[in-house]
């Protein structure tokens, strides 16, 4: 077993109990330690099912037929309990409201380590560390209910991080957020990746941030892997993404537009700076030429 591999799915199929079709159909993918991997797909593509498979909620709590092999750090998920896996796999759900259940932010973040029997002194340190990391230091005594959507999701991330997981799984964490909440959330994820080298599996239906932070992207359609690879390759065709029900990143839409207008298939960028340079170097001279 390669110790550098955090998560590995081999020929996985899963059908929910009482469901007709396969929610996951022949899915194979790998997440290496320290990698940021995004799973993109439309409604019903199987993102949530995939996320819950990683910490064992599928198939232990959410029942159904599982085929193939799912390994988290070399351990077979089917054989471990959720309680045991939960200390290694941090999980953040879609709805901010229903995953926070304590009276105060501090209790929320302490809940996981308390369940794991971590000594009080250490929990205290972990709570401060996690709240600091998500930009919520000083909110200890606030009620989660009184926070904004973005703040709630960051508390949920802190509550997962305080268990010191080896991998963080986020199922459409920005789904219910306003644009500002979304920016704040992704700032935290970016910091987790860049400063802390956290292994992340992110499910999204909007490719904007995934295009910037991911090392590897998996496109899903009806439970099947439609494509996977480096962001540049996988996200190159915005029309394809739209047909899969995924919002393409704005920059790749601009790039695709320029490619067809300027008839130059080599144009490609994902960052604003590159877009700016391309436009200055290639669009503006072409425009001047046309004006003359």
């Amino acid at each position, binding site marked *: 077993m390669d110790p550098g591999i955090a998560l590995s799915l081999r020929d996985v199929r899963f059908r929910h109990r009482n469901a007709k079709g396969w929610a996951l159909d022949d899915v194979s993918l790998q997440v290496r330690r320290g990698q940021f991997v995004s799973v993109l797909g439309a409604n019903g593509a199987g993102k949530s099912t995939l996320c819950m498979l990683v910490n064992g909620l599928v198939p232990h709590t959410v029942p159904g037929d599982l085929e193939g092999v799912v390994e988290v750090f070399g351990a077979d998920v089917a054989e471990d309990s959720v309680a045991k896996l939960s200390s290694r796999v941090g999980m953040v759900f879609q709805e901010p409201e229903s995953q926070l259940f304590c*009276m105060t932010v501090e209790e929320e973040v302490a809940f996981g380590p308390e*369940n794991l029997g971590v000594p009080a002194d250490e929990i205290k340190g972990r709570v401060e560390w996690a709240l600091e990391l998500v930009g919520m230091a000083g909110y200890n005594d606030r*009620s989660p209910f009184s926070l904004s959507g973005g703040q709630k999701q960051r508390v949920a991330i802190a509550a997962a991080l305080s268990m010191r997981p080896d991998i963080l799984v986020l199922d459409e964490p920005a789904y219910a957020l306003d644009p500002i909440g979304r920016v704040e959330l992704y700032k935290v994820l970016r910091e987790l990746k860049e400063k802390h080298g956290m292994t992340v599996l992110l499910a999204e239906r909007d490719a904007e941030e995934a295009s910037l932070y991911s090392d590897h992207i998996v496109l899903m359609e009806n439970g099947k892997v439609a494509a996977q690879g480096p962001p540049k390759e996988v996200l190159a065709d915005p029309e394809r993404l739209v047909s899969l029900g995924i919002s393409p990143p704005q920059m790749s839409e601009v790039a695709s537009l320029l490619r067809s207008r300027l008839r130059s298939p080599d144009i490609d960028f994902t960052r604003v700076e590159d877009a700016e340079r391309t436009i200055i170097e290639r669009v503006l001279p072409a425009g001047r030429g046309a004006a003359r």
Partner: protein
Amino acid sequence: MTGFVDLYTEGDTVLHRMDPRVKIFAVLMLTLLILMISSLVHLLILLAFIALLVALGRAPFSKVSLALRFVLRVMIMIVILWPIFDPSGTPVLATLGPVRITEPGVMRGITNAVRICCLATVWYVLMFTTPQRDLVRALVKLGVRFDFGLTLSIALRFLPTFSATVESIKDAQRARGMEFDKGSPLRRSRNYISVLIPTIISALRTADTLSLALQSRAYGARRHRTYLRELKMRASDGVALAVVVAAFVMPAVAKFFLKVPV
């Protein structure tokens, strides 16, 4: 179904610092004392003492008046209704057909109204000065199972969430032209069903995610969990305990052994 109000206000008074277990015990003792005392004068003295506790806990005026408005309404009802349903004794003050009002009846009405006021205020003092998490924490420490404590705290925590859900569903139904305060009782109760059903569905969905979230955070991973904040009894808590026990035992002895009316 208006927004739910948490009576607790943060503070650093003697009452805030007191161990919540001691506070719960004290409130139970005072409750027994209030039920035991039957003299109006003694009840009024006790009420003055409880009012002192409210002041000591520095509850903000807005919350006190909110609480008092409710208590006052109940007191007025008791003062009016009690003499009507309890007309024993003399002298008779008034007769109105089959209804007879006597002086002892009126006195008993007033006494019981004051008693209710004492009872309510004592519990309010607890609510004003103790955060819900400490109440739940104290209950678990006193032997209630952690699961029950957690369930209780989740229920308390989600009260405001559900009242917000109800309000937004009502708004949605109003936007479709539903009027909640008009029409026959049948019509009105039907209107409320149109709020109840979406609320229940939303609650069930929340409960579903909640149970997944609880498991994802290692709930039940070990038999012995630790606690970030432990409750600590201090010397001052011992003093408070002694005072409360004395305050209960002395009148009890007077009443039941010395047969002194209290």
